[in-house]
């Protein structure tokens, strides 16, 4: 009985399993949440910066450039009061004249334009 079994086993072992395809190393399907959170954070950050930038532009004072220009020529940021102007006129007439000249550039109407009101009046 033992011998026939061995013969049959030998016969069966002559058959081999069919070859299979190579082991495919597919990309690991890990947890997608860290990547999604990172993308969301970038989007929120970009949006916040854009909003902050836009808001900064709209809230900037209209006379911002003028104030800067005045500062650049040494004018005080706030206009001087009448008593202070009087004191300046009495103490230092040259400084007072310079101040008036600078002030006139922004306060008085421009006479540079061809049809400015003062030019028209002067012709009349």
């Amino acid at each position, binding site marked *: 009985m033992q011998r026939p079994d061995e013969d*049959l086993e030998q016969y069966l072992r002559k*058959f081999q399993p069919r070859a299979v395809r190579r082991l*495919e190393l597919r990309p690991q399907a890990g947890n997608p949440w860290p990547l999604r959170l990172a993308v969301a954070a970038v989007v929120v950050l970009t949006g916040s910066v854009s909003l902050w930038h836009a808001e900064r532009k709209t809230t900037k004072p209209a006379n911002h450039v003028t104030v800067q220009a005045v500062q650049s020529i040494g004018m005080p940021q706030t206009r001087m009061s009448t008593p202070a102007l009087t004191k300046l006129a009495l103490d230092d007439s040259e400084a007072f004249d310079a101040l008036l000249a600078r002030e006139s550039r922004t306060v008085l109407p421009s006479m540079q334009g061809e049809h400015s009101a003062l030019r028209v009046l002067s012709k009349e």
Partner: protein
Amino acid sequence: MVTNTLKAAEVKALYEKYGSALVAYACCSGLDFAAAEDVVQQVFLKLLQGHVPVPQTPLAYLYRSVRNASFNLRRNLQHEVEMPDSETWLVGPSGHPEEVLALQSALRELPEEQRETVFLRIWGGMTLQEIADMLDIPVSTAASRYRYALEKLRERLQPAAEF
């Protein structure tokens, strides 16, 4: 039981050594060849991910994993338990597909537990003790299943085959 996680090279070496037999085992349990390949690949990809503790002697573990995965796939896809009768998952010594189909047909006619036992012994290279441990049955049961399986195979193959 001592377990460890395997490196990629070790997993690939195991696949090279046992992959084809494991696919044939999955076919023997009722899957078609393509589905059997997918099942075995999934088992090895899990090993590659490194989260699975593997015993020091991984052969029984691999067969058990393929067995469970095949069972789950058959259940989920409602595959028939019957093996595909025109597809070969063995290669014969003569190269004639008729010889292979005759053997596969004889295997298909065996009760599942006998078919499994004879496959693990002949093509899995396992001892009866290892088969018993893997299937959680007494060695005597494994031995009797194997003996009955050989008797039935001899009856079915004898007229044509020479052994």
